[in-house]
């Protein structure tokens, strides 16, 4: 039992951190950059993707034995597109303001390589609980990335976080952060930061290993 718990935890955490879809696998760049000019947009997009990914994974995993290999991609796409349409209409009905902000990028969730990729690589080969864990992990990782990028861009770009002013009225907003170049550059720098952390960790590990080897 402990072992399977450990495994479940692993499946979940790999998407959030170790195989983070954005920072590590560099998937789903378009929505990642296009809608993250504020944290709230990032959250909305992240949740929409979360919903689509989890629902699709559930159905794909459920139906995996019925779907012949030859048409599986088409089936996946139909399933994904269905849920994207569902999200689209739901958002439009419930929170039209957010829908307007995200605009055409909601339908474009269909083209997010992350979602199709997870179906192909994981959901279609695993049991429902595992597929769900994987989907929740990946979607959380994606959400995390969207929110952090959106947060950074909002803090610098408007001096606010989730709409709350952080620096007072005299703050000079960094307009570029809300503009496309700001998206590119911020994400580039974030990836750079991740590389740097990884590099350091590797170095530390190597030093530790060397030290241990010496002790033996």
């Amino acid at each position, binding site marked *: 039992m402990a072992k399977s718990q450990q495994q479940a935890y692993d499946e979940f955490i790999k998407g959030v951190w170790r195989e983070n879809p954005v920072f590590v696998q560099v*998937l789903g760049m378009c929505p990642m950059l296009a809608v993250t000019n504020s944290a709230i947009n990032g959250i909305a997009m992240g949740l929409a993707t979360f919903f689509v990914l989890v629902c699709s994974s559930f159905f794909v995993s459920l139906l995996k034995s*019925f*779907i*012949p*290999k*030859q*048409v599986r*991609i*088409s*089936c996946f796409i*139909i*399933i994904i*597109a*269905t849920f994207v*349409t*569902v999200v689209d*209409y*739901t958002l*439009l*009905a*419930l929170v*039209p303001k957010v829908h*307007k*902000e995200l*605009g*055409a990028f909601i339908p474009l969730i269909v083209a997010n*390589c992350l979602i*199709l*990729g*997870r179906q*192909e*690589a994981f959901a279609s080969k695993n049991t429902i609980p595992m597929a769900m864990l994987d989907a929740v992990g990946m979607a959380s990782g994606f959400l995390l990335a969207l929110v952090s990028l959106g947060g950074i861009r909002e803090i610098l*770009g*408007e001096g606010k976080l989730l709409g709350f002013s952080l620096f007072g009225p005299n703050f000079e*907003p960094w*307009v570029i952060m*809300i*503009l496309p170049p700001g998206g590119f550059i911020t994400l580039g720098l974030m990836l750079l930061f991740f590389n740097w952390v990884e590099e350091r960790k590797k170095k530390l590990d190597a030093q530790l290993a060397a030290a241990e080897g010496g002790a033996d």
Partner: protein
Amino acid sequence: MSDQEQQAPAGGAEEPSPNRLVGTLAVAGLISGVIIIAVYLATFNTIKENKARELREAVFRVLPGVAHMQKLLLKDGKLVVSHVEEKDEEPIYAGYDKEGNFIGYAIPSAGPGFQDTISVLYGYRPKERLVVGMWILDSRETPGLGDKIYKDAAFVANFDRLEVDPKIVAVKKGTKSKPNEIDAITGATISSKAVVRIINEGNERWLSKLPEPGSEPAFEKVEEKKGEKGKEGQEHPPGANDEGL
């Protein structure tokens, strides 16, 4: 790149019959269609109301004192009231006070701005030949600069009681001296001028086609709330691209 590229079809398993393949797809399509239609129907009314409310709010904003509105279409050179949605028609909206007296038109117009198309709705009172309000439906102007065309109250206030003859002109901030001039936004001259140009273009397109003051189409009491009858479809507030970019 995307994962699906890497996948080689797994060999070994026996070929399923083509019927099976087509069947699977058909079933998938069917299920998906059912789900979609269900959601569509469930959300249809709310979405429609949202849209109508949004449009009404915009119209009320550019035409102060309006309580009712209706859509007008140009048919054979005459403005007629329309309750159905039709493609490829550019409507304008007429606003009426509580008693049903005509107040003015709300005219949508769009054109290139600094970054992308700007969609404007502006109120026009034919009797005095005045623009009485302006509202940006959609724009992608630079945050902090160009977006002042709707965020800067002072700029929006420019369009209250603005003469349309001979033409609206944007001048440098603080130098407004004539009733047909507006103060441009410092640093966003292009965006300010674009708004003015878009309104002028709207005027050019519409003013000659409007009926004589006094002979506007009367307000027809139709249930606005319960939606116009006609084909089911998303109602697009004209000019306002709902998927606003």
